[in-house]
């Protein structure tokens, strides 16, 4: 038991130790540069531990009904930490505070995945979001950042309240704070349990910025620095989606909840993609595109075959790493704080490799094969179609096509204004429009 608490939660302990060390180092005034290095090493160590645990098929329940470490938890933790590691590798070196905040947000994500009961789960959710508010403001030095963070904070508080209400209703219906009976109750579809499930789900939808709970996302994302936007759109959002899987498990939802989720997913996909088309600011574009992607991910929850747990792990891993890479590449292509997409024009000539990476990341987000983003979508949609939602999936495909337009426009911008490569002899003549 005690060894499970030590070994099973070793990644969490590593991150906690990192946070303590960071605080200590800041008080004694050590060099700032060491913060990101420590963050990277801690994440690498935690990933290695998780890899080892997965390879040996480790599973334990150190606190029954509160902490359960199973294969999904391990995989989800690995996905989240690996994305966090990728993020820390590609973003510029930060201060102690930014490393501390990012680390504690990731620790919150680990706690969510470890939890088997709602007490720990709620702690984890708050630990995930609270540092994120600070991270948005930290180092941004702009009023808009504070505005975005404040919006996020207020709506997150509403989300937490909604979730707590749902948890309380669930406690009333099942007499337990554990997740497994809650998921079973939601599956059977008794009215109080349905209400509880919907309340918990809407709280998480708000955190994941699913339409119509998305209002905070564009402001919060555009106020923050680009690398923070990358973290919010990838790791934080992915964690919330995986938290939904953690709560509802793979038993499937009842018909009412499924119908509502389908509608919300479709609205999210269409709204996010339509709104993203008009954006000139890259961060806002990422915000709207992440609303659409939240739609695809939430759509996976209607699956009844049980495949959505692994589908969503794939989706989150691929989507999050793509967004992180895209944000990092954008930062290289357009140095400075500006994030107008016009800055990408003709970037291929100046930095071909980075431009190519950015272009491929965009096409991958659009879901164009043979890029990874396509397979992420394919997995989700195979489960959904196998559950009998072919019509809804077709609608979602139409929505994703709308998304292609702006991703494509972004990646085509890289080659725009490339005058020299246009052969000189090709000039339109005689009445050619």
């Amino acid at each position, binding site marked *: 038991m005690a060894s499970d608490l030590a070994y099973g939660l070793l990644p969490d302990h590593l991150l906690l130790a990192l946070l303590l060390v960071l605080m200590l180092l800041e008080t004694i005034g050590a060099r700032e540069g060491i913060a990101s290095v420590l963050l990277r090493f801690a994440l690498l160590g935690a990933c290695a531990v998780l890899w080892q645990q997965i390879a040996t098929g480790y599973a334990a329940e150190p606190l029954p009904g509160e902490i359960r470490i199973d294969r999904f938890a391990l995989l989800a933790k690995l996905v989240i930490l690996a994305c966090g590691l990728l993020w820390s590798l590609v973003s510029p070196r930060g201060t102690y505070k930014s490393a501390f905040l990012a680390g504690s947000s990731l620790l919150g994500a680990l706690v969510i995945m470890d939890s088997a009961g709602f007490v720990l789960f709620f702690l984890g959710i708050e630990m995930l979001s609270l540092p994120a508010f600070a991270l948005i403001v930290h180092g941004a030095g702009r009023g808009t950042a504070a505005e975005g963070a404040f919006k996020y904070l207020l709506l997150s508080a509403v989300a937490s309240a909604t979730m707590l209400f749902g948890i309380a209703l669930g406690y009333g219906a099942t007499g337990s704070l554990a997740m497994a009976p809650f998921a079973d109750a939601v599956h059977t579809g008794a009215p109080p349990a349905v209400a509880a499930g919907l309340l918990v789900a809407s709280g998480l939808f708000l955190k994941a910025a699913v339409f119509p709970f998305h209002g905070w996302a564009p402001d919060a994302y555009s106020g923050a620095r680009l690398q923070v936007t990358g973290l919010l759109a990838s790791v934080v959002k992915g964690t919330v989606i995986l938290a939904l899987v953690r709560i509802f498990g793979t038993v499937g939802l009842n018909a009412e909840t499924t119908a509502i989720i389908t509608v919300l997913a479709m609205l999210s996909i269409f709204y996010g993609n339509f709104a993203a088309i008009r954006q000139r600011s890259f961060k806002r574009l990422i915000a709207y595109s992440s609303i659409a992607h939240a739609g695809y991910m939430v759509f996976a929850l209607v699956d009844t075959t049980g495949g959505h747990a692994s589908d969503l792990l794939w989706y989150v891993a691929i989507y999050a790493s793509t967004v992180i890479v895209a944000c990092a590449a954008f930062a290289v292509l357009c140095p400075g704080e500006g994030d107008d997409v016009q800055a990408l024009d003709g970037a291929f000539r100046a930095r*071909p490799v980075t431009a190519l990476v950015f272009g491929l990341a965009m096409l991958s987000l659009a879901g164009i*094969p043979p890029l990874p983003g396509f397979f992420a979508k*394919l997995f989700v949609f195979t489960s959904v179609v196998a559950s009998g939602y072919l019509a809804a999936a077709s609608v979602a495909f139409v929505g994703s096509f709308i998304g292609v337009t702006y991703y494509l426009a972004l990646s085509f911008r890289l080659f725009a204004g490339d005058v020299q490569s246009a052969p000189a002899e090709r000039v339109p003549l005689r009445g050619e429009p």
Partner: protein
Amino acid sequence: MGEATVPLLLLVVPLLGAIVAALSARESWLARASTMVAMLVVLALALRLFLAYEPAADASPFDFNLPWMPALGINLHFAVDGFNVYLVLLAALLFPAVLGCTWGSAHTPRRLYLVLMLVLESSLLGTFLAQNVVLFFVFWEAVLIPTGVLILVYGGERRQRAAITFFLYTMAGSVLLLAAVIGLGAEALRQTGTWSFELGVLYGLRLDWNMQMFVFIAIMLACLVKVPLVPFHAWLPLAYYEAPPAVTALMAGALSKMGAYGILKLALPLAPDVAAAAGPAMAALAVTSLLYGAVLALREENYKKLIAYSSLSHMGYVVLGLFTLREVAVHGALLQMLSHGVAVVGLFALLGMLEQRLGPSYRHVTALSTAAPRFAIWLMLFVLTTVALPLTSGFTAEFLILFGAFAQGLAAWQAQAGTLQLTAALLAVTGMVLGATYMLRFARAILFGVDAGAHRIADLRPAETASLLPLLLVILVIGIAPAAVMSKAQSVATQLAPARTLAAPVPPALPAAPALASIGSTHGK
């Protein structure tokens, strides 16, 4: 092992060439050389494959199958069969020919250009060779990326618009295709208990009418945009006109065949009942497209656009042949893909060479027959193929298609099933006359005008002639002795033909289909 890996090698060799080209120094000879070598190796492999392919054998030895995502039944499965045996050869032939013809153009030394060409070749061959429908879709869409970027970077004045239009149009067509693909996999799960996207398994499924309808509509939308047929062709003039000459040639010659191949490989076998029911309507649509393209070509002054519209018209024949659902017409459609691919590439390549030599003033060029006689002879050869002169491949193909369409139309008429098909066949013949008119008008304008003495045109260089020679070879072989080529695809023609009985019962007065096929296959000897 050896033979099974040939289909995979066809895809890998261009990619290896692309890697070498990408790593070579800027504008070095190595990039061009590695590209050409890779394309020639692919051509050699494809030729070997074409010659060794035995349609009679139960299982093709050229079958590469490797589990990729076994839980979902997605395999890396590439094989040669009667459906793709022509097209693989065509694609493998066109790439080096086009590169050879544009060897001296301004962007051939550029690494990005060469890499994209090789990636395009690999993904195009992948589309043709894939025997797993997910894999097919992956390659089908992957083709768009290099094509789009090639137009975008190396195209004409309005290249950005052309690239976006092309990309979005073709993507829009295939939006539902992925839904259909996944739907088919789920149907396999329902009927056999395991996920499978293998075409071999999917062909064996029993789809109900609604599912067939969905699959048919989804596939046809994707394919008709790619071909394209008339209401879906809006991207074509802009993309063909703005693309660099080599890409225009490849789009018309090879990429348009993807659409026809999709109909042949997916729509007809997977939704046979709906295909048979929709056959007359599709044939009518094809004829509309055929006439529309011909009429536009008649009125077009711009050479490149004229050939683009003629291409639209000729692809109409292919779709007409496929939806006639008769053995002889399917043979004709397959040959027409090959013949049109070769002829249109020849025409676009020659126009590209003119453009390369003269710049924008190539559009006023005339009296080519005196200024550059070899150029003129080659141009005339391809023009004659396009107007379906006997002894060229164009004649064999279009004759078989019209023959089949007539037989089917008459059968439908005699069976009191309406005159739509007969009318369509009659109108399709008009298309042939129109085709001769606009192509000869084009030839007269460019070859035999009054030379003001302004143009000094370098005649064809030996390297360019050598690139065009294989195209001529294909034209003559199909035109003179098509039977040997046709035997490779016999299995496909017989497999698709029985579906016609569902559309309209054949009255006993007409000879049976195999007899027609033998007439068609021997007429040119």
